[in-house]
């Protein structure tokens, strides 16, 4: 009896332990970005983000001018230690454990004295977010010691573009799909089965198939780079799944509600607006979250249909561009990436239940 109990405790320990280990591994990358986004440009470039944890570090305690009459080509004595120029360049540790470093070249230099100490309080800043959101300027020290002023990055425009793209690109396909789902589920018309087979067949077709021809159409219609173009594209690519999911849901609604509404003389349109839409809210919400996350996080469709228009650029494009062109500006990139994740994470955590339900409906069937 006792051994069974301890065995249970052991297996509990193994289960919880390995689960928490996996969770830890899964969380570290995101945590790293979050922490990095609050670190200064210099810190990001020179030390890992985990250095915000307490650790021992060389801390500069003094900076001295080079004493007069020192000959850098011979053996020198500084702060009580002696050595050659090369040795000082590397850093010499004195008997107290302090490190004395010659910083600079032979003629123009300072002496830095540092000590290894525990660092508990990390240097954190909100500057990165300021630069990313308000486009503030910032100063950087180049290797030659000059100070350069560089424009920050204005993400607000891209953020607004992302919203302008995502909200209609979520609602429009849902509206169109809901009408179609109702039509397929409750109306009789010639070609009904054939058209629905088309919807099912298109469920798995990769959207790559459409990019070249649709771009050709857009160029001809002068639609490229407009919001309408990208809404329609997302509508087209999202419609098969939306129609299919909503069809399954609407078909499952009790038939008697509809029949009694018909007897009362309501038209299809009235039934749809007054009855079906309110009853379908859970399914609509599930798909809405799905589609919103998909559109917000999309890069390929935006790249192809917005591509050349910088003022319509969405967040993912902005960030991808920064990864490419401003690889050195990691401090802006971290804050920018986090800004782009903010809205999806809020949507995700507040509506997780609906999201999961939508995913279950989508996969168990499709």
């Amino acid at each position, binding site marked *: 009896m006792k051994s069974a109990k301890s065995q249970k405790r052991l297996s509990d320990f193994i289960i919880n332990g390995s689960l928490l280990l996996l969770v830890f591994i899964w969380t570290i990358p995101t945590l790293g970005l979050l922490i990095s986004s609050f670190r200064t440009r210099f810190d990001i470039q020179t030390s890992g983000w985990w250095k915000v944890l307490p650790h021992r570090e060389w801390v500069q305690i003094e900076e001295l001018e080079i004493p007069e009459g020192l000959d850098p080509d011979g053996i020198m004595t500084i702060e009580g230690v002696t050595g050659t120029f090369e040795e000082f360049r590397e850093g010499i540790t004195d008997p107290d454990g302090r490190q004395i470093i010659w910083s600079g070249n032979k003629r123009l230099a300072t002496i830095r004295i540092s000590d290894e100490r525990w660092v508990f309080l990390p240097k954190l800043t909100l500057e990165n977010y300021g630069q990313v959101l308000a486009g503030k300027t910032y100063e950087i020290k180049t290797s030659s010691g000059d100070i350069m002023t560089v424009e920050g990055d204005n993400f607000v425009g891209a953020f607004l573009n992302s919203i302008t793209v995502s909200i209609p690109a979520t609602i429009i396909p849902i509206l169109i799909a809901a009408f179609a789902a109702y039509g397929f589920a409750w109306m009789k018309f010639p070609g009904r089965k054939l058209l629905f087979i088309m919807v099912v067949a298109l469920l798995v077709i990769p959207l790559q198939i459409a990019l070249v021809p649709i771009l050709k159409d857009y160029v001809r219609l002068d639609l490229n780079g*407009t919001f309408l173009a990208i809404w329609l594209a997302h509508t087209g690519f999202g419609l098969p799944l939306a129609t299919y999911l909503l069809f399954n849901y609407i078909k499952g609604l009790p038939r008697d509600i509809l029949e009694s509404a018909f007897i009362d003389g309501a038209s299809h349109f009235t039934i749809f607006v007054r009855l079906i839409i309110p009853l379908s809210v859970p399914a609509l919400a599930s798909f809405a979250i799905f589609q919103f996350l998909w559109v917000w*996080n999309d890069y390929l469709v935006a790249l192809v249909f917005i591509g050349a228009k910088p003022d319509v650029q969405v967040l993912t494009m902005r960030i991808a561009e920064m990864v490419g062109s401003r690889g050195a500006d990691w401090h802006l990139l971290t804050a920018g990436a986090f800004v782009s994740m903010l809205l999806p994470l809020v949507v995700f955590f507040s509506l997780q239940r609906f999201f999961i339900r939508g995913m279950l409906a989508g*996969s168990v069937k499709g």
Partner: protein
Amino acid sequence: MAEVTQSKSSIKTVIEWFGTTLGQIIVAVVVPVITGYVMVKGFIFLRDGEAPKYVIALVAIIWGVGGVALIYYITNWLIEKLPAKWMAKLQPFLFVGPAVAILSWYMAIPTVRTLVTSLYDRTGEVFVGLDNYIAVFSERIMTVAFRNNLLWIVFGATLSVIFGLLVAVLADRSRFEKFAKSLIFLPMAISFVGAGVIWNFIYEVKDAASPQIGLLNAIWVGLGGQPQAWTAMNQPWNNLFLIIIVIWLQTGYAMVIFSAAIKGIPGELLEAARVDGATEVQVFFRIMIPYIMGTIITVATTVVIFTLKIFDVVWVMTGGQFATHVIATQFYRQAFTNQNKGLASAIAIILVICVIPVMIYNLRQFADEEAF
């Protein structure tokens, strides 16, 4: 007082006039024309307008969403004015028509158009037969892409499913179920581009003399290794470091579906097996796995299709350099960088051919349901 009565009666005559057939026809023409005019004006304002960004955003959202709703509403209003026989015939097409039109324009017809384009050369003028397909299967850049996609599917899809199953089973028996599932699921909300930035902080490499700011290299150097450029060296295994990113993103999806399936296994079934002396490992392999096999196949299919189309991660992390191109990045490169629409179309068609078995399976399922 008299004036009010008079104006009231004149309103009445106006309304009565709209009740006549002629009035109805005029209204039926005027309303759509006004709507169309407003829609076009809105479009031009959005395209060329110089208003501040947030005004444009607001107008665009109202114009886009409201416009679609309005089109449905007005068309229905017109249809309901028709005789009942006509109305019954036309109304289904109002409901289904827009969806069918958009699906045709964006998915069905492009499939045919792409198929045709794939038989022409890069300019789209000279018919070349199957030359593009021959090029796709013989050129080295393409065979590398196919090999990489295979790696993506073998490692990426498989490990996503395995980790998803593992987490689902562990979480099911843990006190931290909700907490663990939320955090593993969280990457699903992050874009591939964002994930690329995140993983740069894991894979970043600095030369051996400076401190490493990438976590993986910091650990590696701490263990006595030389700093590695993980996503560039040791081809083709550098692909695995890109694949890890997608495993990280997809595991949450697999986990959620598996978690629901596991909860659907009857408790008595598991209890009976345990009473008969089955070990936990046996319960897992002999009962749980067979019971949720259907779900495993669905999840695996979804993940494989998804992995087949992988684009963003590769494009952002390496741009296809260091032998990391996959089918979708080659498609993009051929279509938009090299402007070789013929070859790009052939690649897209090959992607479609890859998913045809799944499509046939879906259609069979649909035919079997027969409830239609």
